[in-house]
């Protein structure tokens, strides 16, 4: 677990450094994701080192955004004033996104031939 955390933190740190040094518009942890993916492709054995800890972190992903969610206490006034645009944007946009993604996948898959 310690070596897995070291790998994850090293990738994140490298991501933060590169994002800052090159002033990229991508969050550091996202670059870290790419770095870890590259490391895994180059050296498959790393997947065994990181796998278990990654599974624990991703299995409890929901817990990790509780502290930020509690930050809602600071936005009470905004939610009271803007609940309609917020709710409408979330609900309608989510429905459109599901429909467009599934229909585009289906159309392109069919154009390429029958299902394998």
């Amino acid at each position: 677990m310690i070596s897995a955390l070291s790998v994850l933190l090293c990738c994140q740190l490298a991501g933060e450094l590169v994002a800052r040094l090159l002033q990229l518009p991508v969050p550091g942890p996202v670059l870290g994701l790419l770095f870890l993916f590259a490391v895994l492709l180059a050296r498959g054995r790393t997947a065994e080192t990181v796998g278990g800890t990654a599974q624990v972190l991703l299995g409890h992903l929901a817990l990790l955004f509780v502290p930020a969610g509690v930050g809602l206490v600071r936005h009470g006034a905004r939610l009271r004033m803007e609940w309609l645009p917020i709710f409408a944007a979330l609900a309608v946009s989510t429905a459109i996104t599901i429909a467009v993604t599934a229909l585009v996948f289906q159309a392109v898959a069919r154009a390429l031939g029958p299902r394998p």
Partner: protein
Amino acid sequence: MSRLWVYLAASPLLWLTATLLAYQAGMWVFRRAGQRPIAHPVPLAVGALIVLLRATGTDYDTYFAGAQFVHFLLGPATVALAVPLYQNRAEVRRALLPMVSALLAGSAVAVLSAVGIAAALGASGETVASIAPKSVTAPIAMAISEQIGGQPSLTAAMVIATGILGAVMATPLLNLLGVRDWRGRGLAAGVAAHGLGTARAFQVNPLAGTFAGIALGLNGLVTAVLVPLLAQLWR
């Protein structure tokens, strides 16, 4: 008694413990409710903690001094998304072209429709910026939001709400549209509703779940590049 409270209220231990207990209580209710997306543990935990903060007159900074240890793990968790992506790379390669097309279309539509609707209905600039990355998994969404002038904590709430909405509407909506390919159905749930959509997809079909997991990781990447670029154009 009051001296005890003075110690506890100032120590990070209390609010870290409270965060974990609130989440465990939320999980208990969620399981009791048959894991229905509408009873998700995060809104329950957040609601309970907000009530507790109000009742004890504790401000958010004091709370966050303890809860930051949980919050910090968002970064390593984002990096860890590379692992399922790597494990499923064969599936990704096989359906590469339809996946990439659907992903790019879905990513763009998720951002543009949310921003468009919120702005058209008169939401403030900061709210619009906070809503833009709403379909992406929380750690990435919060990082994007911070970068383009949104409020990460507001974004976290939008992300959770989006996940619940997506998990509730995916199955009936996809049936209505007549999409039967499990890969496409899973992909749609993952792009629109990140981890909550993925959890829901795994409940319905394992292949759909796998594709939702891939979509969750890749959509994070695409949106992380797309939104800051759009934000620069906007200004």
